[in-house]
């Protein structure tokens, strides 16, 4: 870990201003991802801006009938919120399927969206990695890629986004709210929030360096049945091989997003039209053009089968 300076921000805008004022500054929320990466010198911030204690830890009803989740609401609290459990079951289930109880107690809503990939080569600083060191190459290509993306990747990077929470939020059409150093705010649909790697896998979201997430807004509840089916090699405490977040309506229509397969939560509204035709039809649209490796081609079948399991459960 490199030496860094540290400050506590007084307000969201001050936090953003502090980030603008110093190159290499980063926000720290729960620290469950950032600190690990700093220990390995994968992240080397020169300055940390502690955003805990900004009062962004509440969940409020919105005028539109949805919920505004403060960026510092802990994953545990969000998953346990009565309104979330009742109206956004897919989110609650996705959260508790992630990490462990101890981690969820620290992890925050904003930090979860911005957690970085679990590609093993990203974690080993002896290996080339375009995400960690732009232009150095991608050791995962042709290497051990069982966990990596089957779609949305590029020659430069095939990492997945590991968040479970984000998959559910994508299905719910959540919107990310931010503020910058000037006090300008914007609302970014989650669909547009994460970027595909292209030639610049180190740029992962549309956020500007001084842009601070204040909240995530959930639109009005969708009704329907909510599912989050996460498949992994052990029963708990592992990242998804494939996960399916789904909200399914009584008439068989619904929404679905996939985790574990792409650099961002993977959803395609057009594919959802095929819902009444079954899992295979939906997945063949949703994963059309997939370019899996030999190690992870099973994920395409697994996605199909996991959605089939969800649909079967929905039928009861």
């Amino acid at each position, binding site marked *: 870990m490199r030496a860094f300076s540290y400050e506590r921000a007084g307000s969201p805008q001050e936090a953003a201003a502090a980030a603008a004022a110093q190159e290499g500054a980063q926000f720290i929320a729960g620290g469950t991802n950032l600190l690990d990466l700093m220990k390995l010198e994968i992240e080397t911030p020169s300055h940390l801006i502690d955003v805990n204690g900004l009062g962004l830890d509440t969940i409020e009803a919105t005028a539109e009938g949805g919920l505004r989740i403060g960026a510092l609401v802990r994953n545990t609290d969000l998953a346990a919120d009565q309104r979330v459990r009742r109206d956004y079951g897919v989110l609650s289930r996705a959260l508790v399927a992630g990490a462990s109880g101890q981690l969820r107690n620290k992890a925050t809503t904003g930090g979860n969206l911005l957690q970085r990939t679990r590609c093993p080569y990203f974690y*080993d600083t002896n290996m080339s990695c375009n995400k960690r060191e732009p232009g150095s190459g991608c050791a995962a290509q042709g*290497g051990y890629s069982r966990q990596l993306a089957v779609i949305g990747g590029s020659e430069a990077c095939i990492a997945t986004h590991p968040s479970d929470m984000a998959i559910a939020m994508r299905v719910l059409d959540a919107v990310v709210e931010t503020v910058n150093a000037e006090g300008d705010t914007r609302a970014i649909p989650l669909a547009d929030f994460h970027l595909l790697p292209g030639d610049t896998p180190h740029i992962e979201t549309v956020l500007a360096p001084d842009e601070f997430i204040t909240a995530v807004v959930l639109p009005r509840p969708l009704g329907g049945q909510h599912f989050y089916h996460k498949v992994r090699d*052990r*029963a*708990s405490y592992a990242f998804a091989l494939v996960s399916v977040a789904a909200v399914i309506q009584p008439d068989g229509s619904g929404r679905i997003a996939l985790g574990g397969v792409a650099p961002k939560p993977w959803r395609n509204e057009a594919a959802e039209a095929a819902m009444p035709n079954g899992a295979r039809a939906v997945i063949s649209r949703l994963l059309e053009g997939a370019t899996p490796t030999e190690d992870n081609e099973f994920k395409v079948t697994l996605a199909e089968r996991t959605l*089939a*399991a969800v649909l079967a459960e929905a039928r009861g």
Partner: protein
Amino acid sequence: MRFDSPAEQNVSDRMKVLGQPLRRIDGPLKTTGMAPYAYERHGVAKDQLVGYPLGSAIAKGRIVSMDINEAQASPGVVGIVTTLEMERLPKVDWNVAYLFGGRDIQHYHQAIAVVVANSFEEARAAAALIRVEYEEDQDAMYDLAAVRQERLSDDVEPIDDIGDFESAYASAEVTLDATYTTPGQCHAQMEPHATIAQWDGDHLTLWTSNQMIEWSRQALATTFDLPAENFRLDSPYIGGGFGVKLFLRADAVMAALAARKVGRAVKLALPRPMSANNTTHRGLTIQRIRIGATQEGKITAIGHDNATNTLPGGDGENGARATRRFYAGENRLLINRALEIHLPESNAMRAPGETAGLMALEIAMDEMAEKLGMDPVEFRIINDTQVDPSHPERQFSERHFIECLQRGAEVFNWASRNKAPGSRREGAWLIGHGVAGAYRDAPAETSGARVSVRPDGSIRVETDMTDIGTGSYTIIAQTAAEMMGVSLEVVNVDLGDSRHPVSAGSGGQWGAASSTAGVYAACLALRKKIAERLAVDPEALEFSEGYVRYNDQQTALSELASAGSITAEDSIEFGDFRSEEYQLATFGAHFVEVAVHATTGEIRVLRMLAVCDAGRILNPMTARSQVIGAMTMGVGAALMESLAVDTRHGFFVNHDLAGYEVPVHADIPEQQVIFLEGEDPYSTPLKAKGVGELGICGVSAAVANAVYNATGARVRDYPITLDKFLDRLPEIA
């Protein structure tokens, strides 16, 4: 004392304290955090500095240059030791890879430098500033399957070549020829390798975490070219080892080198991400098994050809090991190909050889039973043997494998199992049942102890035996309490210190049997000494309730020792009869029920039962803990554990506990363990054998067989992850 003939009735047979399900005596210290592990021994040496290691970024080649200037100038740095400052340090034979010194790189994350600083953070930050230039060898081989293919025609001296395997196999009525693979496995012990080192002139003290104190003391003598007497090791608490702490490792060597350089005590722990590639792993295996049998199910031919990876000088994971002795069959051809592959060092991990071997053999037995249309329990029973098949003149001292199978089948209700693979469904889940046999040798090694009666009437036991979480403290205390006729509470046990008599140490499942026998010997010596003081025949003495009773008289132990402790020391040595005339081993049967999601392939273990035949059980509670821990590890090996090899760069990619998955609580159901009543007088005076390694043998195959039984999809490549059989599950709508 020599153990030259089978044990007869003796004091240990009282079984007042021994054999009782007693809680471990070190439990309160551990659960309250008061048991100090190596890295936390802040009080043992003053002014401790912190070392942080640097591992090689390449797998094979040499270091061209190292630039430490920036690191040296980094805040808090006190000194740096690099591998280029010295020739490659000598090693003893049981270490396969070299630990430090010289330019040559043998494996990824080989230790090449250690930075010493005032704080951990400073040392770590500085270590990242060392610049190393390497020259990589182009001829390195990292792919076991490819090397095996190339070298299949090599002439290898078989382990056993008995009868005429090839013709017996060719003419057998029913045959199986299948190849199984097991991946490299990581010990993944909770406590990393850690050492605090301090020199006093040319004497070195290491507070460390090590299973085999004397081996490591000898290794230090070789490595540092000083007499063994100059080294003291102290390792009272060990947070798991499973074989990865059998030997001197780089943590201790680096701490010692660093402490010498800076002239102060230095502590160092191997960072978790460095552990998998810097230390040892269970080698990978590719095992071809051929079995021939009669229609009635009698095995006539058994062939086991194991290929495994090793660095020069090692054996790798010899999968054919258990096959030597487990089942009958007149024609046998067993081969171990230890192939030179430039991955990190493969070496002992819990039941080395047997674990990986039985993962394969016990699937093969299941496949054979199916071909024969037999109950796999019955098939195993038919092929039991009471003599060592590789030396038929040798009997097994005790072998109750059939009872293990029968008792297990009854308790598990095997009769009501799913009989046709893939046919039992409960909701979304396919239900399956599997069985497998377990075999593990029961070695014993010379082991010594010192026992005292102290003025307060308490008993102190000192031995360099270690407790790696197994319960050594407790069974040693039980032995002393039994022998000296006192209650467990007044026995004080001090372990893991090289100043104490040399013990067998913890490894190869010999620890419990050997070390308690050593304590038995020392207690007999103490009883004799007391008899001499009282001028009575030792046979006439009775020790009970803190008293020595003889000829209607009694004296309290505290009174006897009122003028000062009475101490005796002895060691047990095992005569050749134990290994030459008899084969000593432990046996077991595992029964497992699983559910496999019919659509997604997710696997959940529902029930596990182990029946063990391991001689006298010294403490059913600690023995059970050993076995359920081993069963858990077996589930890991069956379903998830695998060191992923990057065959281009020659290293294990998933080298942390996020990437290398071991079972979590949610993976493990209720586990039942039954120990058959029994004793093995050929083993030790206490008639005991080990259980810690037996417990893992066969478990994984029982799980694998259950998954097959649930789904009808046979997977011969561990771990059995869903990607390997997804396409064979029922069609989806």
